[in-house]
């Protein structure tokens, strides 16, 4: 997305948040957007093409579904009387096959919202994502679950 398009989108979001679509307010939003864009670094995500929108929506749906599911599962765990015996936390290294900043960010966010997992850090060579899990009965199965689920979906959207 070019900077100009991004500035326009940000100006519209600004108008939506403030609930005022008048010209001065859009101009104000636009100027703030341009200022903000000047502050951050120059690379932006590649353009999102029409054929990718459907996959993006399906990814967003998956995101919301996983969030609801994980909130429910964590709640059940928290409220169970013998919580400590059910906990088997651990930090595992997940080998990344996605490479770009956007994809890694998205994957890390999705992992955090999945039942029982939380991304901690990316290794400096960007080969591994360190994931904290509430219960690690089987490390390989957990890695496979993430690789086959979210990572495949993200690659579909961005390839």
């Amino acid at each position, binding site marked *: 997305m070019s900077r100009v398009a991004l500035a326009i989108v940000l100006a519209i*979001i600004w108008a*939506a*948040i403030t*609930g*005022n679509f008048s010209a001065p307010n859009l101009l104000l939003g636009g100027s703030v957007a341009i200022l903000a864009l000047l502050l951050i670094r120059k690379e932006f995500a590649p353009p999102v093409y029409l054929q990718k929108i459907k996959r993006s929506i399906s990814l967003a749906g998956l*995101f*919301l579904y996983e*969030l*609801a599911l*994980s*909130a429910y599962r*964590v*709640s059940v765990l*928290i*409220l169970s009387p013998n*919580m*400590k015996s059910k*906990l*088997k*936390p*651990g*930090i*595992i*290294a997940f080998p990344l096959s996605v490479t770009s900043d956007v994809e890694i960010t998205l994957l*890390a*966010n999705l992992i*955090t*919202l999945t039942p*029982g997992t*939380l*991304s*901690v*850090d990316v*290794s400096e060579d960007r080969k*591994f994502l*360190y994931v*904290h899990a*509430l219960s*690690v009965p089987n*490390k390989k199965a957990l890695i496979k679950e993430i690789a086959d689920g979210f990572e495949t979906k993200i690659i579909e959207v961005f390839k």
Partner: protein
Amino acid sequence: MIVEIAYYIGAILLLIGALFSVVAAIGILRLPDLYTRMHAASKTGTMGAGLTFVAIAVVAFDGPVILRALVGFIFLILTAPVGAHLLARAACLAGYKPSELTEINEYEESMK
């Protein structure tokens, strides 16, 4: 009629959201270390606040308010995992040890 249905749906969403928020708070008290607590704060907490936003959108019947509630919901969902991730990372880098229940820690191994 539709207004009343919307109010009921909004009230139910609000109640479920409040319930998730309470559970998130209980989780922060009960779970053993920062990493496991972030699970409660990032997922259950986001769900609680998110449902409250959706409830506002349902009962508002006012374009700008609905838009703002939905934008708030989206921003919340985008930022909560980042916050949880940064807190967990900062704790790791500061040398905060996970609780003794932790089975494997490949992150710590990688730092050596």
